[in-house]
């Protein structure tokens, strides 16, 4: 009598690979400006600071070069927050001008998950620019129209 298999076939890589996986899908195209405010001497600021660091990595910042990341340091023990100011098309989609995360009680992985859930989905879809045709593709397109005319000079 054998028990049917239950459980995972692969082990998870831990929190670091989970963070890496979330980072890969972060898309800031729908964001105009990010403001990160925290009090460095307060408790629970570690996740905010880590999130700020991850936003400044080249991979994430290249997803939207126009997006500015601003960090405000305050000294009045106010709770830390992260504000995403959205671009116009994203504002229509989300029915809101900006999205705010109160990051005092969230850890880095949760912040990234929320960011992917709310902010990355608001990125406008990419428009396909003019595709450069290769010679073979051009021939295929043109050859079906004027097969004789095109092939005759070539056969010389």
């Amino acid at each position, binding site marked *: 009598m054998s028990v049917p298999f239950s459980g995972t076939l692969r082990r998870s890589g831990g929190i670091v690979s989970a963070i890496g996986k979330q980072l890969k899908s972060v898309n800031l195209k729908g964001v105009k400006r990010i403001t990160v405010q925290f009090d*460095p*001497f*307060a*408790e629970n*600021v*570690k996740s905010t*600071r*880590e999130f*700020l*660091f991850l936003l*400044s*990595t*080249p991979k994430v910042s290249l997803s939207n070069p126009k997006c500015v990341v601003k*960090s405000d*340091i305050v*000294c009045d023990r106010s709770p830390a927050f992260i504000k995403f100011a959205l671009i116009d098309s994203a504002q229509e989609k989300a029915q809101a001008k900006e999205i705010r995360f109160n990051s005092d009680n969230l850890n880095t992985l949760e912040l990234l998950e929320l960011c992917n859930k709310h902010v990355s989905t608001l990125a406008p879809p990419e428009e396909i620019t003019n595709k450069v045709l290769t010679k073979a593709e051009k021939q295929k397109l043109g050859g079906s129209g004027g097969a004789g005319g095109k092939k005759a000079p070539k056969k010389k």
Partner: protein
Amino acid sequence: MANLIQKGLPLTSARTPLLQLMRHRGKINIQRPKEPHYERARVVAVTQPKYPEPPKALTCFQSRAQRTAAQLENPYNAIIAREVRNWLDHSRLVAIFHLNSITADEIFRVRVQLHKQNMHLKSYGRKIIAQAVTGTQYEAIMPLFHSNHCIVFSPDQQRVGALLRLTRKVPQMVLLGGIVENTLLSRNELINFAQLPGLQSAQAQLVQTLNMAAGTVVQQLQAHQCNLVKVLDVHAKGGSDAAPTTDVKETNT
């Protein structure tokens, strides 16, 4: 001739001992050793080493990794902690920055510019800083090191302006706070400190304020006389409308 010598002196004869060659062509057998003789086996069994096992109660719930790994504190950490403590004690200005993602090239450029102003950019691990700082007067800076950071030390505290000017050009360095003359300052307080006038001008202002008390009394006593002198000067230069005011002044004095 040689034989004759050997027969006469038996001690000089050197005979080679009986040699039995054990190894031929270099391949020896170690994988299938011969079973030892009973006597030899008895001696081997008796002389096997016996190692003491730790009492089961202590190690019962520990995993194998925990049982086998014995982590020792690296004494190099203590040396680096002492260096950090030294830097903290001997620099009158310490500024702590949050460091975002930055290329080595850029941080090197910043380090060189700071070095030209006699400021030293350094970075240490959180555990080492904790070791250096807990129990001392610098314990309050501990919460600043939870994430990627760097520290700038300077032996003179007049360089805050230069430091702020240089780091304003680097968006990845975010000033968190600092220590100036054994006083912990937040970011805004550091910026205000940079905008304060220098020590000499502050001393001059203090002297001026102290002298102002006596100065005002003297000024008030001399006010009427000075006014009269001024008015007479104007009158002497040939002002006709100074005449009625002169009469008023003369009746007052």
